[in-house]
């Protein structure tokens, strides 16, 4: 007598080996057991890890978006993109520094442990603007975006006009060398001003702690919680990504840029100054990297080297997604974020120790072996 389990396994095997079965269905069969493993744990753990993956993916996609945008339009491999992210972080640091400039008075009635009078510090902005000043100090990170946008636009345009444009017709290797050199120069400048140590940035008071997401969807209280600021960052990522796509698809400017991406010479022959538009696109990429950095500061205290830490990651996202493909970068960002998150689960790590630390690079290897142009890469890009 054959058990029903055994029968179903045989029939599943038959279905798998049946000729003509679509690849996607085969894929579902292969990932099915993995999915059951996750669901078998607990639904809460699965949802929490999925949420974390989406959150990470949003950050990865946002960071990689500007990189792939520059490559898709200008054909430049910009190794200074991580430095733009870092400069965005330091826009938030600078903004907070400016609005927390303090008056220092000495209180002779209180003594320090080594016997000197204690200094009393009050932010000037709070003295001048009262409650609004206190609000600015509390919400310094999100408000710093207002500083980051013009500063990053100016940096992006200056970088493109001053350096990048001279390398449009050079090889990718030369572009990589010059932009990598620029990144090192920028980070050393930041190091000389801000020092080598990370500078923590606070989360606004009302967004500290965790949201009880489980209770929103009918689960018991406190079974599925997630930090408010990470949710804000996820929504912010989606908004920026959506904004960039809308800008490129629903405006005349975006239409011209996309036409230029497809055939730069023809667009030029129509009398359109495509170079000027591409300069603005570089500025736009700098803004996206900058605001991504500024909003990330409460999650990871920024330091001068943070850009290099994210550079490798963002290149992996772009390569997996397909060089120059915006939807590819977004898809790869979320895919890698979610897989990295699931790879960190104790159950997965007990099966494959250390998988959490290599999963992203493993996926990159697999994708490049099976789809050399990446998930959504175009024919002819980076193939000359």
């Amino acid at each position: 007598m054959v058990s029903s389990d055994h029968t179903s396994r045989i029939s599943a095997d038959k279905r798998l080996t049946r000729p003509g079965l679509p690849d996607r269905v085969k894929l579902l069969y292969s990932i099915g057991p993995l999915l059951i493993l996750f669901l078998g744990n607990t639904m809460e753990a699965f949802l929490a890890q999925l949420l974390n993956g989406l959150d990470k993916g949003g950050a990865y996609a946002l960071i990689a978006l500007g990189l792939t945008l520059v490559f898709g339009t200008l054909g430049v491999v910009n190794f200074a993109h991580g430095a733009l992210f870092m400069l965005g972080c330091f826009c938030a640091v600078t903004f907070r520094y400016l609005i927390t400039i303090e008056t220092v008075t000495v209180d002779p009635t209180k003594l320090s442990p080594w016997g000197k009078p204690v200094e009393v510090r009050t932010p000037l902005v709070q003295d001048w603007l009262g409650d609004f000043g206190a609000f600015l100090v509390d919400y310094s990170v999100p408000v710093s975006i207002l500083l980051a946008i013009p500063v990053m636009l100016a940096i992006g345009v200056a970088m493109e006009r001053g350096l990048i444009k001279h390398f449009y017709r050079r090889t990718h290797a030369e572009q990589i060398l010059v932009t990598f050199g620029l990144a090192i120069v920028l980070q050393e400048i930041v190091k000389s001003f801000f020092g080598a140590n990370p500078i923590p940035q606070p989360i606004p008071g009302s967004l500290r702690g965790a949201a009880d997401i489980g209770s929103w969807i009918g689960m018991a209280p406190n079974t599925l919680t997630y930090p408010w600021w990470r949710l804000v960052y996820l929504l912010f990522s989606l908004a920026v990504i959506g904004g960039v796509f809308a800008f490129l698809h629903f405006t005349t400017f975006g239409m011209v840029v996309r036409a230029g991406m497809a055939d730069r010479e023809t667009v030029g022959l129509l009398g359109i100054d495509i170079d000027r538009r591409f300069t603005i696109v570089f500025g736009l990429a700098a803004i996206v990297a900058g605001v991504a950095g500024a909003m990330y500061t409460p999650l990871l205290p920024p330091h001068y080297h943070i850009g290099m830490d994210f550079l490798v990651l963002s290149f992996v996202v772009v390569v997996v997604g397909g060089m120059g493909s915006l939807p590819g970068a977004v898809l790869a960002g979320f895919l890698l974020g979610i897989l990295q998150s699931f790879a960190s689960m104790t159950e997965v790590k007990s099966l494959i120790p250390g998988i959490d630390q290599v999963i992203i690079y493993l996926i990159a290897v697999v994708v490049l072996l099976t789809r050399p142009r990446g998930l959504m890469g175009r024919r002819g890009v980076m193939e000359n």
Partner: protein
Amino acid sequence: MSKSTISRRGVLKGAAGVAAFTGAPYIFSRTAWAEKYCNAPTGNTALFGFNVPQTGSYAEEGLDQLKGYQLAVKHINGEGDGGMLNTMKPRALKGNGILGKKVEYVTGDTQTNTDAARESARRMIERDKVIMVSGCVTSGVAIATQSLCQEKGIIYMAGLTHSNDTTGKDKRRYGFRHFFNAYQSGVAIAPFLAKEYGTDRRAYHLTADYTWGWTQEESIKNATEALGWETVATVRTPLGLGDYSQYLTPVLNSGADVLILNHYGHDMVNSLPQAVQFGLRDRVVNGKNFEIVVPMFSELMAVGAGEAVKGIIGTSNWHWALEDEATKAFTKSYGEEYGAPPSQSSHTGYVQAILYADAVERAGTFYPPEVIKALEGFEFDGMGNGPTLYRAEDHQCFKEVLVVKGNENPTSRFDVLNVIGKTSREEVTYDPNMFGGELGPYEPNQC
């Protein structure tokens, strides 16, 4: 009868000459090895090498440790108010340098990286010709550097290193540690964890993936399981990781009601606030409030972690708010110099530099085997930790261990930790063979 040609004066001259000739080796025997060891100080100065992380994950602790060394050099040379030289007992140093030589120093940046630390230490020994190397904020760096120093015949006074291996399986004759270790943290913290959180708990460990993290995890796991706690999971995290979210999410539904963070420096400054952001401390699991424990704590980390540190229990090597005269003297001296209270990192650096200098003064020579013998088994007091022994068998210091808790109501930005208890030297003393290892020979290699 012939007249003798030997005069009384001639006999006396001859006797004096013979005595001088035969006695010379004995007169100069104390410095007879002057040419036989690496970087023997010449001239009027002795050069120390302070090798600390000035960049990387532990830069803040490293820079503070460097301040401790700089202050120690001032005090050894007789500058400033003398700090703990005034309270140290017994003390051979006279406040005029070491054996009449003024102490100078070079500094290096370990970059919180083992390879960079070894290269920096090698440069100090081979190029700068230092007679002693000191400093570190990670055990990986300490173990690598003391191994190099053993090869070179240069004494290494370790800085902030907490792994059992530093004076255990990786101990070296030329390496000495004043700082406490993970085993001692486990012994010290366990009774306080039982008192505060009970004996029926389920713990989840997140551990920095290197030698210190592994030994701390093992020591704390053993200590808490001895209390009756269950260990739900031990998860390793890469050193220097910024975003711990993917490791914190599984904690939420693991069934654990205590998270033990075996992280230090910026790792802890990132992981603890992120754990608090995840709402862990607001949760009730297994009918109990969820708790977070950081077994190894420092004031600098507490300042960096901000609000998140309130109410968190850990252990510490030393704290500036202790009431003994030595601590008061050091805190005053350091506060006047740098405008902030000293950290345990700067304290251990300061003490190590003074202890080495004093050992040279007692030995009467810089010859390393004699200095090592002067340090081995040295019993001293008045350095902020009460009566302390530098145990000869493993070069580990034995002294009280502090249990600290994040201050719920700080009165200043420095007032972040409260000392809630002390575990006696006897309680944290263990068998020197417990963690294995061999010290190796006294005789130095030629450089």
